[in-house]
């Protein structure tokens, strides 16, 4: 009752227009109320710009605009991490796959669940402050689970993209909807699972739908109004490219270029239904005003017969101008992909050594192929790629009707899981899958927004699967250390100035490792798959580590509904 009254009050007054008297009244009410209100001060652009140096908050999905997932606090370190214990556990109302990156602002945590719910929690106690339960439209068409990877806050608004392809601004204090914008038509295969990136009053968002013959995009919306500012099609009208026969690592992809050229002559450029989803946040280079992101697979996934050409910019790193959305550069890892070994894990901006050993602004991406790719930020060109983090066999055998065996399997390598980096050690930390698979091809025409796979990839039941955590020196490409895990890994990883990395497994294990040598220093059993990226923050002078334990739809890891925060005594 009371909560309702307060919400109505906030709506009537309008958040941006609170008079002095109104603010006072609201504060008074908040003090009486423990439920229904998050007492946060507005997040400024300056705060977001400096997120990499802020150990109190965790303001962006991957820690900061460079997306290093390197947390600068070090109260929890190698010596005392063994004393880490549960501070609180919050149970959400949704027991499905959790892929959320918790955001922490001023002692308030924002987490999301499957089906696009948002919760504001007291970051110290885990107490619920508000809950936004999205009223999902009846038509949702998505891949790999009803996931949501999180929100971002700018000013006094929380930005959320939903499974039914809407973009919302919520009131950060109350969870009320400020504005809603339709991004694209779910009936044609568009959906949203990623967290938006908000920068300079722009909300940046990509789209899913590469399994449904969409035409992918990255867009900027006005953070104040929800109006679209620019649109970049991830598939240009000329998607043919240079007829590349080798992948980024120089291996032959066995393309039949003549057959493709004949097909091109017959059907023309296939750009309109060519897929190219974007699953994860772009990184933002504040100095040059550019963004960097990777584009996913072409549609249909495994059948290249009806999509002649390199299928630009699928399976590519792409850079755009932040203000205009205009193309700056790209680099394609796999032209004309027929294995769904696409680019999903978010890009990271760090300084890297170029071929001559000079330190330059770089951008790195961990591929489903199992390589970490290191690029020059200026022109997207490839400087080096790392040793393979997972077994590779029979690359690039073409899919057949009966199924052709190739490693890695179609989930990677590194899936959507964000990597972490520790620039001080020149290390990137990635979690990997090892799933031997057969690749099968089938041909069919564009099915009006329906599932368009062009075949199937199948796990080989008799072969052992596993996972690993790998630390790679991005200046040499060499693997520094590797920890093997019993199951393929999906979720994410966090590195801290305390000399630690934190990551979880599908079997419920959540652990801390020495970031220099991979030695396990602490672990916890969550009872459900820990398949979400961890975050860290400080409140009341104490450091916390928080992670979602909700399992995973794609790999069918045990579901749960727990947000678990850990701290020291």
């Amino acid at each position, binding site marked *: 009752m009371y909560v309702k009254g307060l919400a109505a009050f906030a709506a009537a007054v309008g958040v941006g227009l609170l008079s002095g008297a109104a603010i006072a009244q609201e504060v008074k009410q908040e003090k009486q109320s423990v439920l229904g209100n998050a007492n946060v001060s507005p997040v400024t652009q300056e705060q977001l710009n400096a997120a990499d140096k802020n150990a109190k908050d965790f303001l962006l999905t991957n820690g900061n605009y460079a997306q290093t997932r390197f947390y600068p606090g070090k109260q929890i370190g190698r010596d005392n991490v063994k004393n880490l214990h549960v501070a609180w556990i919050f149970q959400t109302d949704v027991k499905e796959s959790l892929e959320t990156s918790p955001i922490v602002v001023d002692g308030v945590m924002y987490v999301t669940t499957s089906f696009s719910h948002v919760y504001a929690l007291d970051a110290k106690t885990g107490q619920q402050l508000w809950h936004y339960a999205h009223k999902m439209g009846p038509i949702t068409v998505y891949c790999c689970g009803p996931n949501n990877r999180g929100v971002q806050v700018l000013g006094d608004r929380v930005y959320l993209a939903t499974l039914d392809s809407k973009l919302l601004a919520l009131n950060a204090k109350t969870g009320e909807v400020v504005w809603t914008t339709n991004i694209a038509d779910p009936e044609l295969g568009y959906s949203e699972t990623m967290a938006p990136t908000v920068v300079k009053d722009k909300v940046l968002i990509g789209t899913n739908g590469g399994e449904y013959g969409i035409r992918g995009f990255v867009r900027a919306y006005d953070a104040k109004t929800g109006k679209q500012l620019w649109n970049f099609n991830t598939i240009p009208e000329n998607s043919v490219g240079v007829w590349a026969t080798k992948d980024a690592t120089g291996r032959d992809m066995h393309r039949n270029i003549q057959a493709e050229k004949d097909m091109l002559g017959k059907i023309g450029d296939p750009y309109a239904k060519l897929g190219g989803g974007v699953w994860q946040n772009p990184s933002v280079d504040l100095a040059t005003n550019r963004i960097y992101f990777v584009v996913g697979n072409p549609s249909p996934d495994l059948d290249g017969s009806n999509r002649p050409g390199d299928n630009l910019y699928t399976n590519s790193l792409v850079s755009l101008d932040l203000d205009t959305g205009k193309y700056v550069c790209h680099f394609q890892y796999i032209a004309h992909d027929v294995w769904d070994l696409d680019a999903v894990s978010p890009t990271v901006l760090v300084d890297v050594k170029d071929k001559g050993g000079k330190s330059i602004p770089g951008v790195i991406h961990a591929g489903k192929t199992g390589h970490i790719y290191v690029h020059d930020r200026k022109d997207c060109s490839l400087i080096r790629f790392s040793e393979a983090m997972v077994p590779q066999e029979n690359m690039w055998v073409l899919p057949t009707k009966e199924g052709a065996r190739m490693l890695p399997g179609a989930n990677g390598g590194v899936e959507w899981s964000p990597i972490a980096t520790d620039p001080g050690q020149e290390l990137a930390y990635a979690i990997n899958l090892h799933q031997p698979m057969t690749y099968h091809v089938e041909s069919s025409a564009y099915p009006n927004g329906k*599932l368009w796979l062009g075949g*199937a990839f199948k796990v080989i039941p008799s072969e052992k699967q596993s996972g690993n955590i790998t630390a790679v020196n991005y200046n040499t490409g060499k693997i520094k250390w590797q920890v093997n895990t019993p199951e393929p890994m999906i979720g994410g990883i966090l590195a801290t100035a305390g000399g630690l990395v934190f990551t979880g497994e599908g079997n419920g294990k959540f652990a801390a490792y020495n970031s220099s040598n991979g030695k396990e220093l602490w672990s916890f059993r969550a009872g459900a798959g820990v398949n979400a990226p961890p975050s860290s923050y400080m409140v009341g002078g104490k450091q916390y580590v928080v992670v979602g334990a909700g399992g995973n739809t794609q790999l069918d890891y045990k579901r749960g509904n727990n947000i678990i925060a850990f701290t020291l005594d």
Partner: protein
Amino acid sequence: MFGKLMIGGAALLLFAAEVRAETIEDKVQVCTGCHGENGKPVDKTIPTIWGQQAGYLYIQLRDFKRGDRKSEIMQPIATQFERDDMLAIAEYFSQKPWPDLGQPHAPKDVAAKAVAASASVGCPACHLDRFQGDGTVPRLAGMGRDYLAKTIADFRTRARGNNPGMSDLMLATSPDDLAALVEYLAGL
């Protein structure tokens, strides 16, 4: 038996008149003849639509109308509806309880085979935990055995051509494994 009778041409004409009626109850009256008064289909090859996902029901009606999914029975019925009718009908049936058809659990060895086949293709990645479905992906748990067998066979031959992705997945799965899956899903 009733279901068979209704399939006659005269009955179809009757539907045409009936679907123009006002209320949702009037609109769905015709459906009970085959899909069941209490949600239990009158014939084993007719799917359960009570408690099915609304998005999925809508998409099927849409596809029948467009001719993307072929059915001599359902196409003429769906043709009568506009998008809003379809959405309302889908919503109506999705709110009904899923009926228990009383189908037995699959024997242990069959279930094990089904679970392995399911893990290989990753059926739960789309049909979700315990095959409950969501949005435009259907619930499969407890669906009529004969209907499951029929529609899977139709996917394989592309006689059911409204979802080539599902056809591809069915083609990549052996008939043996699919038979086990049918037993298993029906008994969930």
